[in-house]
């Protein structure tokens, strides 16, 4: 079994390197204040976002998309229905996006906004 030791060691090293190469995931480096500071120093208009809520019916425009959250999550009688029922419908109107760059407050809020129960653990 000794010959397996270098196998494990090298395998671990080899596997870890590619897997972790881009995982520079430290939250501290992306704290809202730091990001905002970096951007502000470059002249980018920046704000810290504290919440993101559904757009109202009026703001959503004629399509009405975004105003359906109150009926969300039901188990429809059509469960398992043909996929074609989910296709189609008319195109949406163009939307407005503000110029300011929104950065995350630190710590980042969990989703979804305010209303979710904890995720089940299976």
């Amino acid at each position, binding site marked *: 079994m000794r010959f397996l030791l270098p196998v494990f060691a090298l395998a671990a090293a080899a596997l870890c390197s590619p897997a972790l190469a881009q995982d520079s995931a430290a939250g501290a480096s992306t704290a809202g204040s730091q990001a905002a500071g970096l951007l502000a120093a470059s*002249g980018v208009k920046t704000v810290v976002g*504290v919440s993101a*809520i559904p757009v109202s019916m009026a703001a*959503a425009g004629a399509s009405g998309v975004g105003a359906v959250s109150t009926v*969300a999550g039901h188990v429809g009688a059509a469960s398992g229905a043909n*996929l074609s029922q989910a296709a189609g419908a008319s195109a*949406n109107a163009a939307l407005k996006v503000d110029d300011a760059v929104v950065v995350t407050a630190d710590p980042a809020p969990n989703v979804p906004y305010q209303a979710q129960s904890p995720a089940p653990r299976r």
Partner: protein
Amino acid sequence: MRPLAGLICAAAIALAALPAAAQDSSLRSVATHFTAPEAAGFSKQVERDLAARGAQVAMVFRTGRPRSQLPEGIAYTHGGFWVYRTITTADGRTLSGYAVYNLYAGDGQAWPKNQSRLVQDYPFDFIRGSTVDDVAVIVPSPEMQRRILAVIDSPTYARLHNPVYSLVANPWATKYQNCNNFMLDVVGAAAWETTDPARITADLKAHYQPTLVKAGPLMRLFGPIADSRLRTDDQKGPIRTATYESMSAFMDKNGLLQAAYTLNFARP
């Protein structure tokens, strides 16, 4: 000869392991590819593109790894829902723009790497994790946007989340989940109008063809030893996982999308 055999095996594992890193949903990744102002510019470019299309909901994908490290046929490693929202700022103003709904694996500090959480952040945070000048976008059909939004804004969204994370989670099984599998489950919940994860998985098995990841048997054996996120015991036969490529093909085939495209950063 035995040490030599061991070294040969290790080399084989190393080669086999590379393609396995198909996903990268690490918490708040920051790559060095973009400066902060560049990431801000690209994120705003993507937002404006979506807004011009009237997209209330889009699925946006980035790659957090160099393309040379990605398996054949896979170009993006992380995806999230970009949702048009009214955003309240720390100074009390309200803005219009997109919020991003992610499934993030832990960074090993905030929480374990082999567990995930649902985190909402913003386009700038998303783009900062990119290692290339492009993202891929799926704009669902207007009806699907309405349905996906309804799922996101309901308890179903959290119910669909399985926090047990694998980089190559099988979308035809429920044991593990990664960012793309979670997005696919949300799409499935919207398409079939169900909140039952088991039913979604069954429907996906009938209608959705996952991406096959090339990986040898040695990677399956030794992968979990080297990286706890590289779990493949939910796979029977080839390694299957959800990607931008297979999700856009599924949605296109079933008339569930308005557009699928890549968007390149328009560098100033």
